């Protein structure tokens, strides 16, 4: 295991990345797809509204980007903090 201070800083950085990612995860699915749909009904996408598209297709694309972005960011953090395998 790396020394205590380095791994604490690593964990704090990890929690920050997770928090930001979770906010995006929530906004693009529960937000745009469900809660904000009535407010955004004026924006039309392919014959329906933005909320409908996010609920049926858009949120899934965001989830995909989010996981790979998280993995890439964490690989970088692993190296910066010297905790990579």
């Amino acid at each position, binding site marked *: 295991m790396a020394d205590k201070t380095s791994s604490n800083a690593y964990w704090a950085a990890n929690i920050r990345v997770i928090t930001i990612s979770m906010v995006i995860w929530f906004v693009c699915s529960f937000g745009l797809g469900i809660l904000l749909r009535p407010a955004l009904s004026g924006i039309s996408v392919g*014959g329906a509204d933005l909320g*409908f598209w996010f*609920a*049926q297709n858009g949120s899934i694309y965001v989830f*995909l980007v989010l996981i790979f972005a998280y*993995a890439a960011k*964490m690989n970088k953090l692993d190296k910066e903090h010297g905790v990579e395998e």
Partner: protein
Amino acid sequence: MDQFTLNLIVVGASFALYFGIAFWARAGSTAEFYAASQGVPPVMNGMATAADWMSAASFISMAGLIAFGGYNNSVFLMGWTGGYVLLALLLAPYLRKFGKFTVPEFVGDRFYSTSARMVAVICLLVISITYVIGQMVGVGVTFARFLEVSTTTGLLIGSAVVFAYAVFGGMKGITYTQVAQYVVLIIAYTIPALFISLQLTGNFLPQLGLIGGYAPSSTPDDYFLQKLDQVVTELGFAAYTADTTNMFNMFLVTMSLMIGTAGLPHVIIRFFTVPKVSDARTSAGWALVFIALLYTVAPAVGSMARLNITTTFWPGAIEGSAFDKPALSVEEINTNPELSWILNWQKTGLLVFEDKNGDGLIQYFNEPAPLAAANKALGDAKKALADAAADADKAPLEQAVTDATAARDAALAEATLGGKTLAEQGIVGNELTTVNNDIMVLANPEIAKLPGWVIALVAAGALAAALSTAAGLLLAISSAISHDLIKGALKPDISEKGELLWARISMAFAIVLATWLGLDPPGFAAQVVALAFGLAAATIFPVLMMGIFSTRVTKEGAIAGMIVGLITTSVYIFLYLGWFFIPGTNMFPNTPAAHFLGISPAAFGPIGALLNFAVAYIVSGMTKAPPQDVQDLIQSIRVPKGAGAAQAH
């Protein structure tokens, strides 16, 4: 070559492939049996996870649910994919770093308690066994439809196939077989979708077709979704894109499916099989790539099937209004070979039409509530008259039929279709009385007039989806019994060979149990899914998350939390669906009006999870902090460095 022979050849060839792979990759050690020696590359592991995850429900049922539920059933699309974000960010890398084989093992080590491990085993068994029954039923139904055997025979053949490759192959055999099963199922799902999207929207990609223009329209700038909304509202259905549900409940159902997905033991177990911690993160991403290939196509499959089936019965709707041309005639159904699928499905009882008014046409529409109620009352009255004993006094029964007919006629004079009352048009009710959700995917190639080999491929795909999920669940069950229950608690000194034998015996036992329950399903396929997801959300997910992200949660807190999550969630579901799903034992009717704060049984998972977290933190605050070696364990799983191969102990 007839369709039956073609089905037999394609399904038979796919089974031969699975057997071959299982033989080539058979397991020799417990590490290979439980976790494939951590030697599976992320892309392949992602593919296997996708096959493991996508069950008969995803393949057969989901598009049909979306077709008839429209926007409201987006909960499945978001719920069953969003859980992978939680897995990648909150669970997978840390559990891989922990480096053991099973979910209860992590719970037992992190919460330094065999009791905690046993509570986790109970939660896991309840979740996995309820889930596996649905898969066995799916296998039986698919066999029955495509290979013309009885559901029972189909189920027994399916069990024998799973038995052969899961028991001998273990995780290694299952993983490589699932890669092949994924390829079969995704081809089977997308090929019909590509053709149908091209026909309806001119877009080759169904994802673009969904938001594309409507090709057969006379006015070129019509969107496909606008067309669909127009056609279904004309016939009295809710608009496809309309939100007709309770927003709070929809939010909770989506959340329940997401955290339930992240808490399903047979999914989590996949992330123990990758070589490195960083691979666990990308593995979740790859799994979602392969899942998204099906899930982003599903809304197009559902909506296009809905439009196709509607325009089949109302040919006028293809270009203009449904009422521009007469409805589909019975003669056309009987003589046009392109419509033979209607007769084929009518035989199974999953699609039923009935020319009630004898005008030779099948009028398909949504009966307004008063008419539907009046028609049902009339049907009941007629049935009572027909069932009456020969010597009974029939006068009051005949009077009841006369009264019900008068009430129905009054309803017909009120209800309108296409701007005229039904009474004026001589229509007495909806004549396409049954369209089962599940036929949408299976009948899709026939509706779109695709060649016979595509139909055979869909059969093989549905079987691949059900079998791969069943195998993954059986592995989770067998490892919980042999590794956690027998080696972990009852007989810690068991040899590796003995444990491997027990793993195989418990898997065989689980197959027999699942087959037995599948032969006589208690008739609650949809309800058990609610239970499995609700429990995974309320027990496994919170305990794993607290185990990783809190250093303060104690064994007492974890055990109390899991028990509270388990009990509150099952009791809430049983209150509405009957105790242990026994019909008639429910305390409240399962209707939105009777739901507490509008929360449906399927939406309770997140509430159970919140209760679990709250109880665990309160109890932990009152008990002694975890010992130093557990603190060290938590620090160690939080950093990737030093992750070796999994230890057998």
